[in-house]
């Protein structure tokens, strides 16, 4: 990478997040997990559905967080990987009659490969240029899904309707509750795997690249490999999220995966705190619930109200949920001492 490019892209650099600060303490994790486990027992099916959506978007935001917070690369093209994962799951379920759970790893693997391959040319770009290249991907994706040649599989503009799975083994759970726990299990597994990834040698290499690419390559890190790897992993997780999204929503159509989705995911990451993995779920909750709040305040100006709320968040807590968490931690610490 040239020095000029470096100075151009230096501006939006992400604060180096020490890897310990990327996760929650054991106690807090347990409380959050418990909350997530018991919540469905007390709310309506519709709210369970919304919570499932939050978990799914949380996964997609987490994937973006690994890419941006972990390896310092920007992407506005996550909706393309999300769409790909969704369509792979939907097509496998509806045309090949495959079990929904089995389609997810396939979505993940194909999206990983796709992301890895896209990462290769993307290597030559960084910062805002990379963001633009991925943006192009997000814009192009809905049109690919409409292509006549693929219509037999994708259903073209009409999309594909997916059958919603029942709880297995005759468990006495509603479809929504079952899908919630199913999604929760996958989300937790991916969350733990992601944390371990970032704590591993590969994770350290990615963060070294994020903090200073030249220094990292001087230390002997294969910059190209780890950057594309980060892209692949991020795309793979996003693909799994997309597949889950297709199963829960029971429908895929090109209109579901426009650039709006990519921007929403990016927004979720910023609100949750860039580089702070637990923030992903907070960011996801923001993009699911805040538009509804904005709409309830003013129907005609819902977009403007959303903008104001977003502005308030960015202004008051520029580091997102991470900052809030740190403040809380500080106060709890004080209380304990007093």
């Amino acid at each position, binding site marked *: 990478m040239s020095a000029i490019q470096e100075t151009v892209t230096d501006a939006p650099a992400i604060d180096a997040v020490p890897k310990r600060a990327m996760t929650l303490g054991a106690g807090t994790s347990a409380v959050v997990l418990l909350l997530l486990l018991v919540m469905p027992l007390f709310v*309506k*099916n*519709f*709210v369970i*559905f*919304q919570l499932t*959506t939050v978990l799914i978007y949380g996964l997609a935001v987490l994937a973006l967080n690994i890419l941006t917070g972990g390896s310092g690369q920007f992407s506005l093209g996550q909706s393309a990987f999300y769409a790909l994962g969704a369509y792979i799951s939907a097509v496998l379920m509806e045309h090949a009659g495959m079990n929904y759970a089995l389609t997810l790893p396939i979505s993940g693997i194909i999206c990983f490969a796709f992301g890895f391959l896209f990462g290769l040319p993307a290597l030559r770009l960084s910062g805002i240029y990379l963001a633009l290249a991925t943006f192009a991907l997000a814009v192009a994706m809905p*049109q690919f899904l*409409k292509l*006549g040649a693929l219509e037999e599989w994708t259903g*073209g*503009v*009409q*999309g594909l*309707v997916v059958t*919603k799975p029942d709880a297995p083994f005759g468990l006495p759970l509603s479809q929504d509750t079952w899908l919630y726990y199913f999604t929760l299990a996958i989300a937790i597994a991916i969350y733990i795997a992601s944390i371990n990834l970032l704590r591993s040698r590969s994770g350290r290499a990615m963060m070294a690249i994020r903090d200073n690419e030249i220094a990292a390559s001087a230390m002997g890190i294969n910059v190209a490999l780890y950057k594309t790897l980060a892209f692949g992993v991020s795309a793979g997780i996003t693909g799994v999220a997309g597949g889950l*999204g297709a199963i829960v*929503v*029971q*429908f895929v*159509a*090109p*209109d*579901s995966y*426009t650039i*709006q*989705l990519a921007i929403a995911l990016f927004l979720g990451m910023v609100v949750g705190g860039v580089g702070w993995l637990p923030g992903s779920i907070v960011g996801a909750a923001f993009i*699911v619930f805040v*538009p509804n709040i904005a*709409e309830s305040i003013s*129907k*005609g100006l*819902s*977009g403007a109200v959303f903008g104001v709320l977003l502005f308030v968040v960015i202004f008051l807590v520029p580091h997102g949920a991470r900052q809030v968490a740190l403040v809380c931690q500080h106060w709890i610490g004080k209380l304990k001492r007093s």
Partner: protein
Amino acid sequence: MPFNGSRVATLSLAAAFSMVVSGAALAQKKYDTGASDTEIKIGNIMPYSGPASAYGVIGKTEAAYFKMINDKGGINGRKINFISYDDAYSPPKTVEQARKLVESDEVLLIFNSLGTPPNTAIHKYMNAKKVPQLFVATGATKWNDPKHFPWTMGWQPSYQAETRIYAKYILKNMPNAKIAVLYQNDDYGKDYLKGLVDGLGAKAKTMIVAQESYETSEPTIDNHIVKLKASGADVFVNITTPKFAAQAIKKIAEIQWKPTHFLNNVSASVGSVIKPAGYENSQNIISAAYLKDASDPQWNKDPGMEAFYAFMKKDFPEGNVLDGGTVVGYSVAATLVKVLTQCGDNLTRANVMKQAASLKDYEIGTLLPGIKINTSATDFAPISSLKLMKFKGEKWELFGDVISADVSG
């Protein structure tokens, strides 16, 4: 005005009376979730934001219409509580909003949700929940499928019905026609094309001599027109959206091609298509319509349209009369009021569907003369007839009879 308060009241009295007579058991009030002695909750999903936000005006018109009905005392004494949510034309959001309406707000039915992909997304859910998905705002043919989806009903004529009508006309008046078709390469264009091919039946293969499709991303469709002319066709079926329709009309005049030109209803607007293309280039173009055009002065003294103008002036002053969405919103809201009035005191979901499926020759002032709403247990396409019109001078002139073409999904 054909559905003013007093007549509505008379009708409902008559309906209620006939029910009392028909059986004592029916006389008692029956409710499902979302209806009570004082209120009927109706859900609605519209793209108030996002790429299709221009259609949001339909939802706003409906809200104004129901407010007017409430101000006049409601339906059989019950006020309408119209809950309308934004889905930004994004199917996952539509699912969330539909579930919110059904499970959290507990509405009696979801009314006039807009768009083919959003409605497809909730199609199965609504039918599994047995909640009416009534008068959806899309022209796809699949909504008329009472056998598989007894809780879903369309409203406007389907795209296929329209080209079937052109096919009928061509077969009758120009049995030896050589037809060239230009269509947009998406669900709308393909639906229209299918209607034409089905309508021509066995003769489609020999009569359609050329077919061209275009993508909305193409800057111009001139090359397609030149190719279609070269096929030697004498009938041109133009299945394009406004911008391309205007281009096509211009190009045809430019290259001196003189086919009988059929223009789809989507692009029949005088303001956005005919005028930019030039009146002199648009003479004798044939199209079809079911609603009265608010920009057409011939309806200024029409009682049906006068009622509409009065409504717009008094109850929805911020709306634009010339925006096609307001006429649609007004008409479809009137249809729902008619159905709910017919339900009387039996406001169960099953009865709502039953009444929606038993509209007989119902006329709304904004529909063209002779266009009537008819439904039955096997026909879930309320408006399935259109009237042909020919462009003369500076306006459309209606001609011929109302032609109907029922298509089931």
